[in-house]
């Protein structure tokens, strides 16, 4: 377990066979790059499905080619229980998340930012009220809340995503509150106000934009991952995106009917897609968080 520390050659010339001890920084960069890459691929898939640049029609069934295995001619990723091309459906499945999940994220960002800002800035009763709201929202398990909403309102997936967005803010609000309170304790406001900056500029430009921007990005990527997992769970319970519209969640669910018989591709592929996306989001959030911390206290 020897670690090697090598100084940069001051001439800029790198000698051969150098090894660097630098791991964390590299990992962080890799994490951020991976997250960006996955997001780019998702956007590409979204665009492709919007403009119809697809190998097959996602609903086109080929009843002679049910459950074709991986690498079948014509269907690189095989077909599902209905003879539909899995690759196509994986691409189109992104649609199910893109707008609803982004909507959910936007809702939770807005609420979280407002509450966190108010609580961090004002403290006292406002802080208590925010703490109360956050605890209240977190006290009811979200999946149960969604099931309850399903029972009484019979909402569609967009409304369910709205519920998920509406209940997703406590994490952000709490972190924002702590961060702002920390800044406030460091006489951040006083020094800014003393230098003649208006309160609005301080709140929105300095505080939210300069100091808390990483928090938003971290929360957004986590919330996005959560929304995807939620849709998947709901699909399993029968309340998610409904066939024939593909979503990764309902693909895993319908595919899992064949998993126990050994046909695991139809469910494993979308499950892997979900896992890769989520890990990308998590890694991105983690790396970004560390970056932000480093910047704050180098």
């Amino acid at each position, binding site marked *: 377990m020897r670690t090697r520390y090598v100084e940069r050659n001051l001439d800029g010339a790198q000698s051969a066979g150098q090894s660097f001890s630098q791991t964390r920084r590299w990992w962080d960069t890799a994490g951020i790059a991976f997250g960006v890459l996955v997001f780019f691929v998702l956007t590409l898939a979204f665009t492709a499905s919007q403009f119809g640049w697809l190998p097959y029609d996602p609903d086109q069934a080929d009843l002679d080619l049910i459950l074709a295995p991986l690498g079948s001619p014509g269907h690189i990723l095989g077909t599902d229980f209905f003879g539909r091309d899995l690759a196509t459906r994986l691409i189109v499945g992104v649609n199910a998340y893109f707008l609803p999940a982004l909507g959910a994220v936007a809702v939770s960002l807005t609420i979280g930012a407002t509450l966190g800002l108010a609580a961090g800035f004002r403290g006292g009763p406002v802080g208590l009220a925010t703490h109360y709201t956050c605890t209240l929202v977190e006290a009811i*398990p979200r999946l149960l809340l969604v099931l309850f909403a399903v*029972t*009484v309102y019979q909402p569609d997936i967009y409304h369910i995503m709205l519920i998920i967005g509406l209940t997703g803010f406590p994490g952000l609000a709490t972190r924002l509150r702590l961060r702002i309170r920390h800044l406030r304790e460091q006489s951040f406001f006083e020094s800014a106000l003393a230098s003649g900056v208006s309160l609005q500029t301080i709140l929105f430009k300095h505080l939210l934009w300069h100091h808390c921007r990483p928090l938003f990005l971290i929360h957004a990527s986590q919330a996005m991952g959560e929304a995807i997992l939620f849709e*998947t769970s709901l699909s399993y319970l029968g309340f998610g995106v409904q066939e024939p519209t593909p979503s990764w969640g309902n693909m895993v669910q319908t595919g899992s009917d064949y998993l126990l018989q050994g046909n695991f591709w139809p469910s494993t592929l979308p499950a892997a897609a*979900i896992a890769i996306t989520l890990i990308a989001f998590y890694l991105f959030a983690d790396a970004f968080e560390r970056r932000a911390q480093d910047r704050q206290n180098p």
Partner: protein
Amino acid sequence: MRIKRSAIRPIARTLAKELAFTFALLVGISVVVYAMLVTAPNSHSADLATARPAEQTATPAYFHWLAGLVQGDLGNTSRSGGLVADELIPAAGHTLFLIACAMSASLLVAVPLAVCAATKRFNGLSRPLLITLYLSSALPSFWLAYAAIFVSTHYLDYFPVVDGTNIDWPITALATAILVLGSGLATTAARELSSELTRVLSQEYVTAAVAKGACLWRHAYVEGLLLPILEIAATRLSHVIGACVIVEQVLNWPGLGRLVWQAAQERDTHLVMGAVLACALFVALAHLLHRTLHVLMNPRASHMGY
């Protein structure tokens, strides 16, 4: 732990505040649930909320409903006509047992992992384990459960699902459930614990403790392990209950999650409402317990506001 006599008063005051907070929380939960019932387009649910009192104004109706709740009257299930409480209580017992097992198991994994990560020891062993956990927490839980069952049935020739008879010794089903439920929990716990531990280990008082030759952990364990563990257990409870809905479905665990899903399918508003209230009650009580222990363990806690 010795508590100074003069500290009893602030602690008592803080605890009283926490109690009031929990009470307010419970009231808030009931208001949310009631509001959802009243605004329901489905007449049956709305009946449930307003039918009791003679007068039709909303406020007294709420209090009648609340009074019923307090007396344990959650109504009857529309499915079997039995009392909701009769169905909820055993199911809640099974779910809590499952959660307790999953939580302790995942903490058993997460704590050593976090300690290794924070002290940069045994990286060769803990890193791959952490990556595996990370991966499994990103997979859809029901797929993970299916995969576990697939592996178990195809390679170990054993069927790890509660089918009724082995409920009294549900070792394998429990193991599968813990694997599925615990992977996400262990990942979060390991991550949060290790970052918290890293922070605490670099605190000056820990350095000072080492400088005076005392055991590092005797000084670091409260803030670095105990308090974060309490915090994680209390705040993740709600998530774990949610995850239970899925896991219980797959593994046929006769708990709240399975019950509430069936009830949701049958639009059995009473039962779903009861389950939601029960879960929220658990979470609120866990929150209270967490705060209580926190206040008792952290002498500064009773001097801090929100």
